[in-house]
């Protein structure tokens, strides 16, 4: 029963991902990327983690993509359409990607990558994974959590310093 929604989400995600890398205009690329990200959120719901889905929509679609669009619109990069959009590395890059596709595809389909399959029966994961996730974050993963928050702070300061116009000169 869950297969039908999965295939719909997956198909839309892959098609719009192809859209992202093949469009000429960066704003259209952002539009397609937004659709892909929404499908990924739907996939998270199929994986019984509504919290991840909400965070995905909230942070990726709600903030990161808006930031992308803001940058594209501020710099007015939409006008670069005339130039060639793809570079000349295609001759090397496309075979490389195809070989990688074949290799990892062989490993996945051939069953080299495994996890014991089966539906989740634990109440924890189906019912209220959010609460358990929160507890894990603040106990077992407290140190990585703090490191990540410092990383965010550094990124915040770094971004401001990078775009600040030099006032002294």
């Amino acid at each position, binding site marked *: 029963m869950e297969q039908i929604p999965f295939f719909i989400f997956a198909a839309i995600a892959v098609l719009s991902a192809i859209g992202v890398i093949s469009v000429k205009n960066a704003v259209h690329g952002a539009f397609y990327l937004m659709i892909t990200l929404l499908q990924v959120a739907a996939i998270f719901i199929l994986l019984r983690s509504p919290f991840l889905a909400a965070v995905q929509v909230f942070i990726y679609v709600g903030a990161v993509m808006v930031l992308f669009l803001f940058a594209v619109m501020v710099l007015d990069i939409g006008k670069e359409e005339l130039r060639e959009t793809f570079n000349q590395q295609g001759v090397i890059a496309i075979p490389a990607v195809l070989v990688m596709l074949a290799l990892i595809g062989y490993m996945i389909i051939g069953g080299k990558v495994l996890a014991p399959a089966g539906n989740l029966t634990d109440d924890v994961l189906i019912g209220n994974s959010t609460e358990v996730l929160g507890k894990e974050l603040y106990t077992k993963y407290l140190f990585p959590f703090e490191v990540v928050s410092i990383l965010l702070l550094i990124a915040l300061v770094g971004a401001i310093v*990078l775009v600040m116009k030099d006032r002294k000169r």
Partner: protein
Amino acid sequence: MLTLTHFLILSFLLFSIGVAGVLLRRNIIIILMSLELIFNSANIALAAFSYFLKGLNGMVFVVFNITVAAAEVAIGLAILVAVYRNRKTVNVDELGDMKG
């Protein structure tokens, strides 16, 4: 019945598309977006493993991943804005001054 393979194949397809985007495109913004695709494919794989292994470790890592991706985008776009101010281009082929 959905199995782990379904999710891994989806994750892997998105990953390949992202890599292709990074390798093939010239526009630096599209390259950043392709990086986001790669991040997302990793997130799908982590969440799928977490679900099928009946543990929460993968999901915790997805949360960290999303945080790191947000930081990456902030810095990436800041560098982009700084570069565009100085060079008036977002074409990566024209930004090769650091080549030895």
